[in-house]
Every structure is written in C-alpha cells, then in structure tokens.
C-alpha cells in the first residue's frame, strides 16, 4: 500500500475541493490500469469500512456505485478518492435508509489509515474533516445530478436463488454453499466499475452461474436454460463477460494489495 494515511490529512482535505490538482507523478497519469488499481483500493476501503460500520450489503453496494459513477464523470486526479469514498458511504447510508454518523465514518477511516492509532480528539481537525465529508457529499450529489438511487442485483439474486433451489434436491442443496458463494461473488464485484457496466440481472445471474459451476451443481435442462428463463435478454456471452470481469478483480487483488 502506498500509504493512504499520508494522503488524507486535514491539510490535504483543503485542496481536495480544488479541481484540477495535477501534482501526482506524471509518468502514470494516463495509465488506466493504475487508475483501476486505485479504484480497487478505494473500493476495498469502502468494503472494509462498511463491515466495520455494520453496514448491510445494499448500502455498501450503493456507496460503491456512487463512487464509480462519480469517477466516471470526473478525473481521479481532481479529487481525493478516499474522501469521496467516505462521502459516498455517508450518502449511501442516507439513500438506503441505514443512517450512519459522520463521526463513526471518520473514526473508522482514521483508524484504517493509521492502524492502531488512538481515536481522533474531537477538535478542529475532526470538525474540518467532518466539514469536508459533508461538502464532498454535496459535490457528489451535484455531479450525479441527484440520480443517486440505483437498482442492485441483490434482490434479483436472492429471488433467483430461491427459484433455483427448488430445482435441486433439497439435501444436495443444503450440502452445497451456493448461496454464500454467490453472495460473496456479488459483493466482490463492487470492487470494480463492472458493477455499473452490467445490468443488475446479468450480474445476479452470472454470480449464481459461477457459484453453481464452482460446486459442479447440475440443473435440469429443458427447452431453455435456467438463466434464459430468469432473464430473457441474457446470453451466454453476457454471463461470460461478467464472469471474466469478476475474475479479473480477483487477479487484481493479488496485484494491488
């Protein structure tokens, strides 16, 4: 890790809002893979923070989508990604009605950046940080034109799981952790921008598909495959595309962290 701790300090926060910060090392500025890695790390930060804050999966997903959509519109060099991530978490809590307190978000993030450190004092630094989180939230809202509620694959996946489950012998099903695996895959796919590139149904089907494949679960085949039934417009190529994107993320983990 290249020490995000140094990047997020109260002094830094001030010129976070200045667009057009061009002071990062010039050699990799245009390198998309570098950006992807940064996004991966920031999303990992969102995920970890989400777990520590006790967020449910859907708000975490919303936070990630907010983040990706934001950086779809602006350059990563213009804004401090971790601050944006914190604001995304805060905003996602509001959108998905799991209200989080800025204080908790700041506390957890602070500890994430400076592991093992004592909690922040409630002094000026803290309040500055809090102000910038709130300011950044407004910025995100404006950048996204207040389109901040998204459809997620989560409820599709759960319904699909139930439907598929009744196709399988119940003992075979209870032995196989398909539900856990598909849920884990679904959560993991928010590490990358793939979560906004594919439609929710496709992601849900692909994660379920991969989970079933991982355990070699065989489903009966009729005129149509099960995934064709669940979503009319999905093709095998779509599923493969999602899966390859997802597997890339797992490869990235090894490279990034």
């Amino acid at each position, binding site marked *: 890790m290249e020490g995000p701790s140094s990047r997020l300090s109260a002094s830094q926060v001030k010129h976070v809002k200045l667009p057009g910060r061009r002071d990062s090392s010039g050699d990799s500025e245009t390198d998309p893979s570098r950006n992807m890695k940064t996004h991966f790390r920031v999303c*990992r930060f969102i*995920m*970890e923070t989400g*777990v*520590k*804050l*006790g967020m*449910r*999966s*859907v708000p975490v997903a919303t936070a990630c989508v907010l983040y990706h959509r934001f950086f779809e519109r602006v350059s990563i060099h213009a804004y401090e990604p971790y601050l944006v991530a914190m604001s995304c978490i805060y905003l996602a809590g509001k959108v998905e009605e799991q209200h989080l307190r800025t*204080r908790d*978000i700041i*506390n*957890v993030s602070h*500890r*994430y950046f400076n592991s093992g450190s*004592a*909690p922040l*004092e*409630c002094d000026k630094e803290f309040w500055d940080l809090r102000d910038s989180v709130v300011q950044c939230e407004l910025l995100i809202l404006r950048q996204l034109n207040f389109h901040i509620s998204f459809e997620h694959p*989560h*409820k*599709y996946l*759960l*319904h699909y*799981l*139930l*439907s598929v489950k*009744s*196709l399988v*012998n*119940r003992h075979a099903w*209870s*032995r196989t*952790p398909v539900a*856990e*695996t598909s*849920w*884990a895959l679904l959560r*993991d796919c928010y*590490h990358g921008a793939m979560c906004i590139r594919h439609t929710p149904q496709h992601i849900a089907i692909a994660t379920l598909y*991969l989970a079933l*494949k*991982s*355990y*070699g*679960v*065989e489903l*009966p*085949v*009729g*005129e*149509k495959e*099960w995934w*064709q*039934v*669940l*979503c009319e417009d999905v093709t095998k190529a779509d599923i493969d595309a999602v899966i*390859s994107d997802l*597997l890339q993320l797992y490869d990235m983990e090894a490279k990034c962290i």
Partner: protein
Amino acid sequence: MDRDLLKQCLRYHGESLFNKLKCEQTENPDFQAVASDLCKATYERGEEQSNPLVEQFIARKADILFCPSWKTATAQEDEHEEEEAAEPYAIMPPLELFMEVSYEERRSMMYRDLEKGDIVVGRINNIREYGFFLTLLCMAGGLKREIEDLELSALCHVRELPSTGSHDDPLAYFQTGDLIRAAVKDIDRYQEKITVSLQPASLPPSSEQIKLGVITREELPLHYSRSVRAAADSTETYGYILGGCHGYHNPSVVDYLLEKVGISDTHPPSMMRGLQSNLFKEEDFASVIRKKQSASWALKCVRAGVDHFKHGRHVEAMNEYNKALEIDTNNVEALVARGALYANKGSIVKAITDFELALESCPDHRNAKKYLCQTLVERGKQLEEQEKLVTAEGLYRRALSLDDSNPEAQEALRKITDAMQKSIRLREEALAKEQDKAKSGPTSAEKLRKILKEEKRMKKKRRRSSSSSSSSTSRSSTSSSSSSSSRRKSKKKKKKQKRKAERANKRHRRISSRESRRSEEGKSKKDRKDKDEEELEWYPAPPNTSATFLNQTGGLVFGARDEEEVEERKISQLYSLSAASEEEDDHSSRRERKGRDREDSRTRKNSQSRSTEGRDMSRERGREDNRKDRRDSDSKRRSSLDDKSKRRLSCSSAELENSQKSASGNSAYKHPEARMRRNSSTRNSLDGGRIESRGRQDFHKVEEVMRRAEEERSNKNVGNHNEEGDTRPKKDLPANLLNIFNQIAQFEKEKGGQPKK
C-alpha cells in the same frame, strides 16, 4: 476441506481442474490430505470444454470454497410460505414451468425429491370404501415443483382421515371434486405410488399450524395461481411476474431473504483474501472506537470541570460534568466528580446516587468508595436529626461495609445503637406500665383492630358525605381525624413538609374523589377489592409522615389558587357525581380545563339564551357522554390522554348532569321506565331529542324543576358572566336539590355494592 463437495466439483469439471488444483493448492495441507483420495474420482465429462478461467478461479479459491466453515447457512427447516396477504418476497412459480423441462424428467425428479411430510394439494377423483384418490395439482409446502400436468395420483387411506366422532363413515364428508390439502405419508419410488394423510401428526414439526383437509379455491397456494396464469399466457415471463409481485417491491426484501437463506449481512462472506472475516479486528469496529472516543472526550470535560471546581466556579463545573455524562453516560470519573460537587452543595441524596452509580460500573473505585462512605455518614446524621434512627443506622452500617475502618462511621454507629437501645427500653417500660393499667382490657392486637374499625367507620361516613356534599367537608373531616396527632411542626423542616404536603394533598384528593365515584359504581368485585386495598393503604397516619401536614399547610401553600380549585371541585362534584376522574389530573391541566370550562359556559350561555333547541341537543350529547363516562370510568382513569380529549365534552355536559341526576333520582322510584326512556334517548338522533325531552317534561316534574333552576342559573350567569364565570351560581343552588343528590347517592350506593358495614 469438504471432500464430498470437492469430489462433486471434480466430477463436473474433469481432470484439468484436478491438475490446476494440485498446482494452486500445493501449500495447503488440507488439500494434500484429500488429494490422493480425489485422483480416484471418476470424471464424467472431460470432453465438454469448460471455461479454463473458471477452473483457474476454482483452483485458486478452493481453500475458501470448500472450507467447511464457508457454509454458514444452517440446514433450515423449510418453513411453509406465508400465503397471507402480506407477501414478504416475491413468490414465484416453479422455474421448470418456464424452462419447459420434459415430462419424463420432471416426473422422475418429482419422485426423486418428494419426501414424507411435504404438503400437496389435489382434487378427489375417486372415492372407494378404503379411501379416496387424489389427482395432485400442486405442492403447498416443502418441495416447490410444477406437478399439475404430471398426472400424479395419490391415495388417502381411510385410516389417514382424522376421526370426527364415533358415528358415521369419515369418507362421507368428502366428495369427488373436492380440493384437499394433505401431507405426503409415503412414497414408493419404484412403483411410483404416493400415499397421503390428513392426520395432523403426519406434518413435520415446522409446519404444524397448517390445516389439512378440504380447502376452497381461494386457499390454493399463491404460486399455483401464478403458474396457471403464466402457463396460459406466454407474455407472462419470469421477469415480468417478478416485477409484478407485491413482495418484490418490499423495501426490506433483501434483509428478509438473507435471513431466510441464512447469510449474515453483518459478517458478509467474501472471496477476496483481504476481506475474510477473521481479518477484522474487534477494536477497529465503529462502536468500539466511538466508545473509546467518548470516554476520552468525557474525561476531558471532567478535567475542565475539576478545574472550574478548584476555582470555585461550581456552576461551570456542574455544566462540564453534565456534559461529560451526556457524552458518556455512566462515566465513572464524571459521576464521582459530580457526586462530590453535590455533596459539597448539600444535595447529599443526589451525591449518594452518583457515587452508587459510579461504583456499580467500577466497584473498586477508591475515591468513589471514600466519598460515598463520607456522604452516607453525613446523610445518617441528617436522618438522625429527623429521628429516623433505623434508617440512619442502616446508612452507617453501609458506610462501614464500604470502609470498615472509617472512624466517623464507627463512632456514629455506636452512638446511634446506644440511643436506639435507650429508646427501646423507654418504650418497653411505657408499654409495661400501660399493660399494667389495662390488664383485663383488650390486648394490643385487639386494640389495633378496634382502632382500624373506628377508622373505617369514620371513613365510610366521610365517603358518604363526600359523595353527596362538597368535597371541602370531606376534607375537613379528614383533617379533624388526622390533625389531632400533628401538632409538632418545626420551622426547619417546613420546606420539606410543604412538598410532602403537596404530594399528600394530591393523593388524598385522588382517593376521596375515587371514593366518591366508587360509592356510586362499586359493583364489580374487583373494584371492591381494589378499594379494600386502598383503604388499608390509606389508614394509618403515623405521626411524622406526610398525612399530618396535609391540612395545616395545604391552604397556605396553594393560597388563592387552592381556593379556586376547591370551589371548582365543589362544582364539579355538585354537577357530576360520576365525573370524578377529572379530579386526578394535575393542577395545570385542571386549570386549563377550568379555562375551557369558562369558555364553554360562555358559549353555552349564548346558546341557551338564544334557543332551547341547542341545549337539548347538547343535553342529549352530554347524557350519552356521561353514561359512557361512567361505564368505562375505570379505564378512563388510567388513560388521561383519552380523558383530556373527552374532557371538553364532559365539561360542557357537566351542567346538564344535574338534570340527568334528577332523572336517575327518579329512577329510584320508577326504575324500569326511566331506564327505558334513557335507552330510547340514546337511540334517538339529535333532532329527535328535542321532542323527546319535551315529552319528558310532562312526565317528570322533578326534572322540570331542575331545568328551571338551571335556566335561572344561566340567566344569572348572563348577568355576571365576565368576572365569575359559572362558579358563582352553584353556591346558591336550592337546598332541595342537595337533598335530591343525597337521595341519589344513597340509592346508588344501595343498589351498587352491598352495604359495607
């Protein structure tokens, strides 16, 4: 690693996966343990090329995927879907309906997967003497499959019908074509025979509440009706139905289903190595950090507070302590500091509470212990001055239990035990003397009983008087009974006494008002029991408790306001003997009510002077309201909210009640008729009430008198309405009215509970 799962996976993916696994999991001892076993596995389909990327993924993540702890979902009992209107998630038709799986495959799958205890719905197609046959329509629990076109038939033996009694044939209750919900009892997979049962015992324990037997068309499972629709209409695709389901739009559908599926959303699974749940440390979680932060923040405040305190700025210090406690409730340091401040300021009881709280969360806090010890001794001395020796002694003992070497406490305890022994000796002597005096007389127990009886009688008398006349007399009677023993009044305690008196006053009033009501409606047993309890609780007024100060200070404390209240209460008692529930309300609300009352009376006056019609209407309303009032006065007493909302009505009706009283007074003599009339009057609509009341005027002269009196009074009200409101005229109510009231009360008492003597 789960060997069976791994085998299943290898059988599916073939040897290439095994090779990759061997490559990726070389360092995993778990895999090495099972590897030799796995290479013997048979590979079913090596020919179909599966995605190498997927295999790579499986191989890499095998340690997570096949770890036994990965499976968090416990084998849940298949709860049966809620068929109620509330559909927590989208209940979808079985998938194979859309997949168009072949008939043979579905049929064999069905026989493979159907189990004892599953619930099916079928239609009777044949009734024989040994049972009936069902054509299965759909599944209703357990398995969820599309079976309507599978031509499954099931036998329900006559033994499996619940016996309905000793008499006729149980099969007589069934007809061909009936829809039956039944539990699968047995499946013969080779002969393809299914037997079902209607006995509740054949259900699995998780679905015991399901009723077996004949059902109506409406009771068919939701997914069945949806699949029928989907089968009929090809535009009804899975996605379309899903979107149209009520449960799909349930905002908490994800949480609900996660719980159903058995996935924890607070410790979510992840395939990412960095997000494995064992990597999360407890102290990194938000709640833990917040707690730590709050504690340190609070401590900062306490430090500031102590600083203030040292400079003598006690108010600021208190503010800081309170702030600290707001930030971190039960912060030990803050509690101790605040307690010390309280003790310094003389609020010893508050100080003790703070110290105790501090010790509760930190039992070994040295300062807290020390301070508590000191304050307890201090408090004990206070109590000693008030001659509460026993309590004081207890406090000293407690102080010693905290710190047994505290010299002050030891000293105080010694003194107090001496004093107590002395007083006990004195008392004993006095008692002995007395006993000598009255050797032949009754024993002390008998004496006590006698006193109690006496008191009871007094009270009864009082009650009667309070129910019939104004409460001020009842008050004075109490005062006469209790004030005899209350001549000790020290200036020092005056403030406290006042407070106590206030409380006692309130209580007393409440009791007396309750009694007055009781005397009217004390019918139910429970009520009487309540009252007995109350009487017990009410009786003895020991010399130095609140009851004694009741009458001495009451007037002083409340002053003019109290007088007002007395007046008002008098009125309300005069007017509505049963509306006593109002009296319980605290002063503020009573005054508020009084204000409203005035307004009401003003408006009433207007309406009265203008038309008698309006008054009749309001009388009708008032009566109805009043009756209701009496009926549920018990519950009403508790729910003051309700009370408040109704008070307006009952107030406006208060004036009218005397007429009603008179009617019920008449009913003492013409009981049945009166009741009939009352009933009819409730039934009548408002405009009908006018004619009614006119007719009544002819019949009941007493009421006529009453009304005249009322009108008289209202006229007077018009005269002096601005300054006095409606309080004045009640005083000069005709004396015969009071008599009537007395009669009513008397009658109702007799009619109600049996005479209590």
